[in-house]
């Protein structure tokens, strides 16, 4: 069992950073917060249906250093996404940035160790924005990641640069010999008028349990455009709390798609902070879970400034004993007049023992806003099934067609074609397998 005492011991072993104390202070502060809050139990409102505390009953090892050399480029091949030959690749092994496996080549895209960034030209940005997510995620899990910020990266997209090839981020966990807790951390700054596509992907080697507690914070400047994709298709021995925190500090555009197809316990936190006038944000999610997997999507859209638009659509398919959670918060602050915020969550339950808890949550403090939200939980459309069967299509094929059709409007939001084709294949494969 991983107790607070275990983490205290590991925390004390951390070497001080060479950055004039900035990161050390942040870690120190976060560790105190973690010690006070502990691992959230089901009494914590935001963790009511996701029993993350149960995971800590198992013995995980939190590696102190990257296992340099234990993972080769060939090991990485099984996790590589299509289009990788051209893409920029950023690799984390057990939560640590691997310089040797990463390959960043697009002009205007800069990836450096966070501690180095904090020491050099990016000191102010790191100081200002690292830890921004903790303003929204007040729990021991977020604090635990920050307490162990080490081997993290800073990603910078230069002003006016349209990064031609996407940035693929691979989070690889080596669970071949023991259970591993990994805590990748990154901070990204998308400068004015820049454009970039980011794809995060997760893979585990070995059959021991893994628990990835990840935080990525992204700051989006005026005129910038961010496309962000998260693809989760790891084994049932893998667990995740995956936080993506985006703050738009100038009139900008973000498009975030979260595809969750497998895993043990998966919790995604997606925060989009609309902190400038005329921002636009699109949040899409598709989850398709079977077995005993658990998927939890917690989203926050915080409208701080006026005239922002956000559109959110999450769709789920749950089979077998899978469980799902959707919690979508929309805040509209007092200054955020003329906000347009839309949210919808739809679920199909394929089995009697699958379930989902869905909860939209709107907190509106401005008076001139347009907000809608809605959620549905249902079964596969029987009328549609009969229609297809009456045309000679077998029940199994008809189910596949209906579920693919259901998923299609989210898949359309995966803009890079190679990636979309890849995800479609994963889903079709799953449909074949799950519905046979």
């Amino acid at each position, binding site marked *: 069992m991983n107790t607070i005492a275990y983490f205290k011991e590991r925390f004390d072993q951390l070497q001080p950073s060479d950055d004039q104390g900035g990161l050390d202070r942040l870690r120190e502060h976060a560790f105190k917060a973690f010690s006070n809050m502990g691992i959230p139990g089901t009494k914590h409102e935001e963790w009511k249906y996701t029993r993350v505390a149960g995971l800590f009953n198992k013995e995980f090892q939190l590696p102190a250093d990257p296992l340099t050399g234990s993972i080769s480029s060939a090991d990485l091949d099984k996790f590589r996404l299509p289009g990788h030959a051209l893409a920029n690749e950023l690799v984390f092994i057990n939560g640590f940035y691997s310089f040797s496996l990463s390959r960043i080549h697009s002009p205007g895209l800069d990836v450096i160790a966070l501690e180095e960034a904090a020491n050099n030209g990016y000191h102010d940005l790191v100081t200002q924005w690292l830890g921004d997510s903790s303003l929204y995620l007040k729990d021991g899990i977020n604090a635990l990641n920050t307490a162990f910020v080490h081997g993290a990266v800073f990603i910078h997209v230069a002003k006016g640069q349209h990064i031609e090839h996407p940035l693929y981020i691979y989070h690889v966990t080596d669970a071949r010999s023991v259970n591993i807790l990994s805590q990748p951390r990154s901070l990204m700054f998308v400068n004015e008028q820049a454009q970039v596509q980011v794809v995060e992907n997760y893979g585990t080697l070995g059959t021991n349990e893994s628990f990835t507690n990840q935080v990525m914070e992204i700051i989006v400047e005026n005129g910038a455009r961010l496309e962000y994709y998260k693809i989760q298709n790891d084994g049932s021995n893998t667990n995740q709390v995956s936080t993506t925190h985006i703050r738009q500090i100038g009139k900008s555009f973000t498009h975030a798609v979260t595809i969750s197809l497998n895993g043990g316990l998966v919790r995604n936190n997606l925060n989009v902070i609309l902190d400038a006038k005329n921002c636009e944000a699109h949040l899409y999610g598709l989850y398709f879970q079977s077995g005993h997997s658990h998927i939890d999507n917690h989203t926050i859209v915080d409208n701080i400034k006026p005239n922002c638009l956000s559109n959110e659509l999450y769709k789920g398919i749950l089979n077998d004993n899978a469980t799902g959670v959707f919690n979508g918060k929309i805040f509209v602050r007092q200054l955020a007049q003329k906000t347009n915020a839309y949210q919808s969550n739809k679920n199909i339950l394929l089995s009697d023992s699958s379930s989902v808890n869905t909860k939209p949550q709107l907190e509106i403090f401005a008076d001139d806003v347009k907000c809608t939200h809605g959620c549905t939980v249902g079964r596969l459309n029987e009328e549609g099934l*009969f229609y297809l*069967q*009456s045309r*000679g*299509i*077998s*029940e199994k094929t008809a189910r596949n*067609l209906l579920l*693919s059709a259901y998923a*299609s409007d989210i898949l359309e939001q995966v803009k890079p074609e190679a990636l979309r084709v890849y995800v479609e294949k994963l889903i079709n494969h799953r449909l074949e397998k799950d519905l046979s």
Partner: protein
Amino acid sequence: MLTIQNLHAGIEGKKILNGINLEIKPGEVHAIMGPNGSGKSTLASVLAGRSDYEVLEGTVEFLGKDLLGLSPEHRAAEGLFLAFQYPVEIPGLNTVNFIKTAVNELRKYRGEAPLDAVTFLKRMKEKMALVNIEQTLLSRSLNEGFSGGEKKRNEVFQMAMLEPRLAILDETDSGLDIDAIRIVSNGVNKLRKKDNAILVVTHYQRLLDYIVPDYVHVLYNGRIVKSGPKELALELEERGYDFIKNENTVEVA
């Protein structure tokens, strides 16, 4: 081709069909007419195999097979087609892909190789011309946002592509204006052949001006109470269903 004997059926414990007898031969067009609630759509649904209907008694033989023992998809593969009264909208399912899947599943059932893309497209173009349907409609999601007339034309287009032996048209005229009825009927008429048959289920006589039946049957309280030549439809139009109801009051009560 189709022989229905003493068919009793219902839904959710409510009995609707009370002993239907009907024989349809290749090349024939039969019309089933009747007032609302007489069991017309139930008959169509039971024949196509909708699972929420329960068959209580009787037999249906289709091309020598026990139809009631087959799944909906196998009924289709054996050559049965139901044009829906309310075609289902399926967002995200491309119409052409859907039809291609259906055509090839039927071919698979019959032990034929799937159509290659070129042959499929060629056949599609032919049938599109036959039933007067545009490419733009087919490149959209199945029936999504289609007008009433477009949906019914799409049904007839599917019928053309699947080439059934027996097509059941369930209230195909409902919700259509006279121009749409003419277009849809023309499509159906072009598909009439010596070896296939059509069963038209309708409330009104007007559809039968365009799809002219060989026989007209009047359904009332779940039974065929009157059969006759096409002129029977005109008589019903003139006198309304009341004379049928009055004639049958004694029996029903």
